[in-house]
């Protein structure tokens, strides 16, 4: 049995207010180490909300997220930030790079925040990451000097900088052209093949097919799970939504 990197148990996210709204409604999910999981679903189905809960960007109303065996529901906000810093890497639909900093400085940001490496080591790792993503010549350019695909690759390099166990990506190709989309998905696939866990939210079924597993969310619940890479015909596991 493969090692579990990320687990959601009875995960609920409810927005309280005059009219309560449930974004995530009792999701149980396990993601193995090195697995590439795609989360799909229509707009407003709760897939991004689920991703934010899995990446500890948001706190569940109920349930538990377990990251690398560590339950997180009782962690303080600072401890959650620390888990995000060291165990999760984030890639968003928009690159969200700091505009005043160069590509390299953006990549160095999480490493400097963690403060576990010397400046020289950080510089070497930053350049190595940018080089591996074909951006070595763009290390000293600011985001506004890069194309959309290049910015997103810098964002991926930033997500990888602290060697996180889990990469969480929210529609990372949503704002890219076809060739950049292909490139970015290829990189994420490669990251998973190297043993990291990748969880991606995407609207694109063709890209989702290339994941190891795909869960389809509707109304905050997992409607279907497709176990095999490339399988779109039959759900391998159908998870009955909780009441």
């Amino acid at each position, binding site marked *: 049995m493969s090692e579990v990197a990320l687990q959601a148990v009875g995960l609920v996210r409810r927005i309280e207010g005059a009219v309560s709204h449930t974004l995530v409604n009792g999701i149980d999910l396990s993601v193995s180490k090195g697995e590439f999981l795609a989360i799909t679903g229509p707009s407003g189905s709760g897939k991004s909300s689920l991703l934010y809960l899995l990446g500890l960007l948001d706190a569940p109303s109920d349930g538990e997220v377990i990251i690398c065996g560590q339950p997180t529901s009782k962690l303080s906000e600072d401890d959650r930030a620390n888990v995000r810093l*060291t165990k999760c890497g984030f890639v968003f639909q928009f690159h969200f790079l700091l505009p005043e900093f160069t590509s390299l400085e953006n990549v160095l940001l*999480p490493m*400097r925040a963690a403060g576990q490496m010397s400046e020289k080591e950080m510089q070497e790792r930053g350049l190595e990451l940018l080089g591996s993503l074909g951006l070595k010549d763009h290390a000293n350019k600011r985001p506004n000097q890069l194309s959309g695909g290049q910015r997103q690759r810098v964002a991926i390099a930033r997500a990888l900088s602290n060697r996180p166990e889990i990469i969480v990506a929210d529609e990372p190709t949503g704002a890219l052209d076809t060739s950049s989309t292909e490139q970015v998905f290829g990189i994420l696939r490669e990251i998973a093949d190297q043993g990291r866990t990748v969880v991606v939210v995407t609207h694109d079924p063709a890209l989702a097919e290339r994941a190891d597993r795909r869960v389809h969310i509707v109304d905050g619940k997992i409607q279907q799970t497709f176990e095999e890479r490339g399988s779109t015909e039959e759900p391998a596991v159908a998870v009955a939504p909780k009441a």
Partner: protein
Amino acid sequence: MASNLLVNIAWTHVTTRVRQTLVGMAGVAMGVGFTIMMAGLMEGSQIDFLHQLVDTMPHVSIQSDRRTAAPQAADREYGAVQMSGIANVNNRPGIRYPESVMASVRSWLPGDVAPSVKTTAIIDHGGRIGVTLVGIDPKQEIKVSKLPSQMREGQINDLLRAPNAVIIGQALAEKLAVKTGNAVTLIGGQGTHVNSTVVGIFRSGLKRVDEGQIYSLISTAQVMMGQSGIINELRLRLNDPLEAETIAKQVEGQTGYKSVSWQEANSDLLSSFAVRDFIVLTVMGAMLLTSSFATYNIISTITNEKRQDIAIMKSLGMREAAVRRIFILEAAIIGVVGILFGWIIGYALCYGWSQITIYNTLTGTNVPISIYYTPFHYIVAGGISLLCCTGAAFFPARKATRVHPVEIIRGAS
């Protein structure tokens, strides 16, 4: 969280907004500069005035009266709590055995002591003006008084050269049209008339002294009082005038005579200084606070513009407090640079003021404006300004960093 990173981000933010940053720095610099100038002017004029005041009067004056009525014979005799209907017995006025008292005080006093007789008189030279007549011993007076250096005509020892000689203030001399060598008449409280010669003119710089005080020999003052041999005031000059209050208490405890420090003698003036200080400090505080509003505006603008960056930094795992610190550091950078320029502006303003002279109607001379230079003004103005700047940044920074990153990320998507 590595502090280098926070400083790096803060520095990048302020250096990429040059115009805003310069406006903020200018605000701080102006506030600090003008505060230093006001403090220098205020304290300079105050110190100048106090120097004049302290120079023209004894630091401590041992007077012949007591703070409370002396125990009466009936009280002593019968040990009664209170006696009524019995007139108090007044002993002969003046300090008893003044030489012994002076020797005793001189034995420990950090300074010197001289005898004097203080009384009131009228000086008559065509017109009549009431004055305070101070009888002094010129040889001893030079140890306790700045009078020798305040002489404009004649010398203090000239009192010994003519019978009943007097030294009068310049303002009084002008009022009475008296010159050195002129004869005047002194009229004492007992109706005593004494023909006197003006042997010198002094100028202390204090109008009430220059217009209302004259000096004679002790013997002349005793004649005017009608009390031969009386000494009713011992005048003390201290090495450190600021110790006057302590010394006065010690002397009073030792001799039993009322001992008045220059601070006590001018307590009404000093309390008005305290009120003035309070008002000026309030104005200066308001100036520094107002100058920090520019910083508040800048940090508010930056935090608004940087909401997305704040969300990203938080999502990457930077703690809320660390992100908040970035903006407080930005305010500190604006504050510190502004303060450095403010110090330069403050010094330049003080120097500029010190070059201005004002015509003194009393002395008839142009005197420069007194400025007091002290690092204390610079440190206090800088410290308060830095506190105001960082305080002004704290609130917008706290508000901005409390934003949930998901809200911003969703909003941008």
